[in-house]
């Protein structure tokens, strides 16, 4: 990716520094996220949900794409975050920003506890356990009908205005600004983590789980740390969802949500920082448009679309584009 000039002395700091540097296209990407305000002001609610899904996918990317940990139960953290933020607001503290922090701390704690199980297992067992945990949390929320509202959903979530000025309006203006800012700030943090020596060691573990301990990397503690970070940001995404919709449904903890976020990530391209963001946007827009076109059988078209994309672009949209560029370049040279 960041190829060294042949002959030049290898300088690891330089490699890391080059990764951290902002590229013009990244800046264009983030500027483009402001376009909906002008171009599609009627779609801001969807945009805010895309931003939330993107953050959620990004948090999963840290595990799946960068650390090589498979998870089919990431909705646990989304749900815990959503319910913590929702319950806090329901019981009298509706201030959004402190609510976000509260929810992410709660989720990080849950992630910390679960991480003790996670670092002990790998591969298929990991899939089983994460799915199991997801079902477990879903059922707990369902059975705590008095607290969570069960299948009726958590009602009575009332959010205060942001800074006491901007209330969450029906058009989704505040919601989109709020989620976009939160997602962008989270992205900055995650980008920094991924491009740090710590992030590099995660990629090392993904590539070779045996060699990393041999060169002195404490695998288990690193995995625990990354697990907690990932949980924390997934919880943040959940909290954003609870706050902007002022509602939490059991669906926040569902297996379907876990599966969907993985699909988004794979669709965009795992381990590519922007993969989750692009994947989330593509998935949500496709779903929205297809469901409008055919309310009865739209899942068929969504399924077909996913199969086609994955057959032709096994590494996701970004992976496919990267391969394309490589081919064009090699032909030129």
């Amino acid at each position: 990716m960041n190829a060294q000039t042949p002959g030049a002395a290898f300088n690891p700091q330089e490699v890391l520094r080059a990764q951290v540097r902002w590229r013009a296209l990244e800046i264009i990407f983030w500027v483009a996220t402001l376009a909906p305000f002008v171009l599609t002001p009627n779609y801001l609610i969807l945009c805010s949900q895309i931003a939330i899904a993107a953050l959620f996918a990004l948090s999963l990317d840290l595990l799946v794409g960068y650390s090589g940990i498979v998870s089919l139960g990431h909705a646990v953290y989304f749900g815990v975050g959503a319910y913590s933020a929702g319950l806090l607001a329901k019981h009298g503290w509706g201030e959004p920003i402190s609510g976000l922090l509260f929810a992410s701390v709660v989720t990080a704690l849950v992630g910390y506890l679960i991480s003790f199980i996670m670092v002990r297992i790998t591969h298929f067992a990991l899939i089983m356990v994460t799915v199991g945990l997801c079902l477990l949390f879903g059922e707990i929320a369902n059975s705590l009908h008095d607290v969570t509202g069960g299948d009726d959903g958590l009602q009575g979530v009332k959010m205060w205005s942001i800074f006491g000025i901007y209330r969450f309006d029906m058009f989704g203006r505040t919601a989109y600004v709020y989620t976009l800012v939160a997602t962008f700030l989270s992205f900055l943090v995650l980008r920094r983590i991924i491009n740090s020596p710590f992030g590099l060691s995660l990629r090392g573990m993904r590539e070779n789980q045996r060699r990393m301990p041999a060169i002195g990397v404490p695998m288990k503690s690193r995995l625990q740390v990354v697990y907690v970070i990932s949980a924390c940001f997934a919880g943040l995404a959940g909290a954003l969802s609870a706050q902007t919709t002022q509602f939490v449904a059991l669906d926040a903890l569902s297996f379907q949500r876990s599966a969907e976020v993985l699909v988004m990530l794979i669709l965009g391209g795992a381990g590519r920082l922007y993969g989750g963001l692009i994947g989330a946007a593509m998935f949500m827009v496709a779903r929205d448009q297809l469901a409008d076109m055919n309310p009865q059988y739209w899942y068929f078209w969504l399924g077909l679309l996913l199969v086609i994309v994955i057959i032709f672009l096994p590494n996701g949209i970004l992976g496919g584009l990267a391969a394309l560029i490589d081919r064009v370049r090699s032909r030129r040279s």
Partner: protein
Amino acid sequence: MKKVFAGIGGMATAMLLGLAPAQAQDTIKIGLIMSFSGQFADLGTMMDAGVKLYMKEHGDTIAGKKIEIIRKDSGAAGTAPDVAKRLAQELIVRDKVDIIAGFSLTPDALAAADVFTESKKVAVIMNAATAIITARSPYFARTSIPLPAAMGALGTWAAKTGGAKKTFTMVTNYGPGIDSEIAFQTAFKAAGGEVIGGVRFPVANPDFSAFAQQLKDSKADSVYIFVPGGEQPAALGKALAEHGVTPKTVKIFSSGELVNDEPLKSMGDAALGIISGWSYSWTHKSDTNAKFVKGINEMLNGRNPDQFAVSGYDGMQLIYKALEKTKGNADGDTLIAAMKGLAWESPRGPVSIDPETRDIVQNIYLRRVDTVNGKPQVVEFDKLDAVKDPVKLQLKADGKLNPDGTAK
């Protein structure tokens, strides 16, 4: 370099989102939020058939304005109230609809309640049956049924006339299930019966064997059952029949869903004798209903209508009649005011919209499953006239009901 494409991808997405629909002056747009897919898809199909039939019979223009329907699916995830809420917001913000209707399940309607209050748009509930829904927004009107109205009547009848002493209740664990459980149990106890146990099963629950066994083990002489429509009534009916729970061994009381055509088919003769208290069956004898049944038969290749179809039909009827009254003015406050007190002859009998609560007032029929022409079928044998929702009557008596019908 791949970041280039990340940027382009983002731009493309933003462009794609720019396909906003055009606006027209002389149309009234109605958004339908229903479960068109998933476990409760059949319910959406039936409601939509009712809507289509009414529009087929009465045309798509009212007071000189064209009626346009926009359909949205809320059913993909089973129950996803946040989806229903988002769809309601999008219909109003994006599609600029004037009226919203549908709502298969209670959580969907409750989640979206604030949206209607804020946007001042009328929402007609065509199924969701928990009593409290209409009290959550002053812009709700309902054409289906407030469950406690029917279930209270059934509970009283079960203990007084039905000969049930010890009963067991089986309901779905969400708003309407709990609502109907309370209504039935309260009425049953008040009439001298004893409730010896009960189960609540999850909303998305495909198999009922374990619950049927629990009922059998409880040694109750009767059981009360509520399940929402869709695939569940048939699955539950089958489980009961398999465990030997039939009206011959245990008296079965239920809401209307369990004795719709599909579940009756899968239960066969095991269903004979089930008593239900409900607002509609296609076997109801009236000219209006005969015409309605014929219309739905034609539309759905011979299938008979159920309560979902009749609620969809009456929902459209309510909207049409109210728009007629306001001369095509679909402004929320004007329209809801026009809906209050409207009365008409529905396929289920005379109905009206209670001006105080905006909920439907209708007859509740007591029916038994009997063999008619060699097939199990629902037969009405008694009725209660113009039943109002007891829950909101209680709220009113306690002084907890605002003048606009919302709860304090």
